[in-house]
């Protein structure tokens, strides 16, 4: 299978690899996918007091396209508000990385990861106690 230059670039130089510790302030964590399906993405966003995403980190188990999709998303969400981040569509990710049809699910998973991370952040803001307990 031939990979696009952009997929290869993200695979060779993945952006923003890493993790935040769970107790850090303003973190939202989204983990989507399953090992049995061959891909798991963990996307973490760090949201500032102004509601803007300051930083993002990811780790992904999956094929090159899954790694590239999540790496790209960490770049795209930075500087966006939560609602702006939620507006990112899988089709834009797929287009940017020139993913073939068989790899579209990777871009869908990346979109899901954003949604999951934002939802987790919002849950934590409204119910910090349950986070402490977890």
């Amino acid at each position: 299978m031939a990979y696009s230059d952009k997929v290869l670039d993200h695979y060779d130089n993945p952006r923003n690899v890493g993790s935040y510790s769970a107790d850090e302030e303003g973190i939202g964590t989204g983990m989507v996918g399953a090992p049995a399906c061959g891909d798991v993405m963990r996307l973490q966003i760090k949201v500032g007091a102004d509601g803007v995403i300051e930083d993002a980190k990811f780790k992904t188990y999956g094929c090159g396209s899954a790694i590239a999709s999540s790496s790209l998303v960490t770049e795209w969400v930075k500087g966006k508000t939560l609602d702006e981040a939620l507006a990112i569509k899988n089709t834009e990710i797929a287009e940017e990385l020139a993913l073939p049809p068989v790899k579209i699910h990777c871009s869908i998973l990346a979109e899901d990861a954003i949604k999951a991370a934002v939802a987790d952040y919002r849950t934590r803001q409204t119910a910090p106690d349950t986070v402490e307990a977890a």
Partner: protein
Amino acid sequence: MNRPIYLDYAATTPVDPRVVGKMLPWLFDNFGNPASRSHAYGWAAEEAVELAREQVAALIGADPREIVWTSGATESNNLAIKGAMQFHAGRGKHVVTVKTEHKSVLDTVRELERSGCEVTLLDVQENGLIDIEAFRAALRPDTVLASVMFVNNETGVIQDIAALGAICRDKGVLFHVDGAQATGKVAFDLDELPVDMMSLSAHKTYGPKGIGALYVCRKPRVRIEALIHGGGHERGMRSGTLPTHQIVGMGEAYWLTRENMGAENERIRMLRDRLLNGLSALDQVFVNGDMERRVPHNLNISFNFVEGESLLMGMKDIAVSSGSACTSASLEPSYVLRAMGRSDELAHSSIRFSIGRFTTQQEVDSAIEQVSTAVRKLRELSPLWDMHSAGIDLSTVQWASH
């Protein structure tokens, strides 16, 4: 440009240059049709074909008259299975085979099922081997044929053909063996093995693609229906003009293999063990399939918490195969590994290395280095490796479905 290191000999092998040399004269200088009985062009070609038939028979301990030329092991599997079931339709319609067989067997029995046959697909044990008693129990009074591959193409595991064949003889069931991955790797003698039909391929054993054979036992005489009708070549079992150059190539390839097999397999085993030792330095590495009953050429190994296709991307200077879904169109991980009870995770993480005649120690060392670098890099990227390192049992995690 440097080409990738080739460690995919189970997919195909290069044609040995000595074989190429033997093939060339049969394309232009001696182009005759082996079936032409009326002139020297035909006589020369026929002589070459018959010599090759003897060479192929010699490697497997058969009589040359038991060799039927085909286009390859896929056709041989089709001919053996469909041919036997059709010829013996009056005796029954039940066929037994195994979940880890090659697709050319599984799809063939699937097709027979559509036309009214009954198929039993046997499970294998965790090590990839058939449970002999389960095999015995699967044979019924109306079972016409059992088909079992000698050596599995993905794992290199060697089935106990002698024991399985003895059960078939005992129960009056025809026994077909797909030997495509066995020739030159396992020493065997069909004069002694209770096998009725065996599929053979040239291109897995340093011969050309597009040529193979079906061994059809004469004592006891095995009868099958032809699939391809025409000029009545190959005693009516497979019509079509014989491709002299291909046949000469297969003969020479099998002949060379027979002469060097012992020493060659020891050298290959040493390289395979070197590869395994090198890769075992990585944590969470699992060999798929039995290590004892396995051809020396194969190492099928899973790198836990690393997905196979991303690993292939990381080792782009090595040519290998992966059992991961993403390398195929099906999106399903290797059905062979799953039949062995391997988890989807480990199946997704599997790589098949297969070593051959032209593999060098330097190439193996370079492969160890590249694979280790890629695995370490991808584990740094893997949330699963993170969780594993933190002591989390991944089987207890509730995963979001997708």
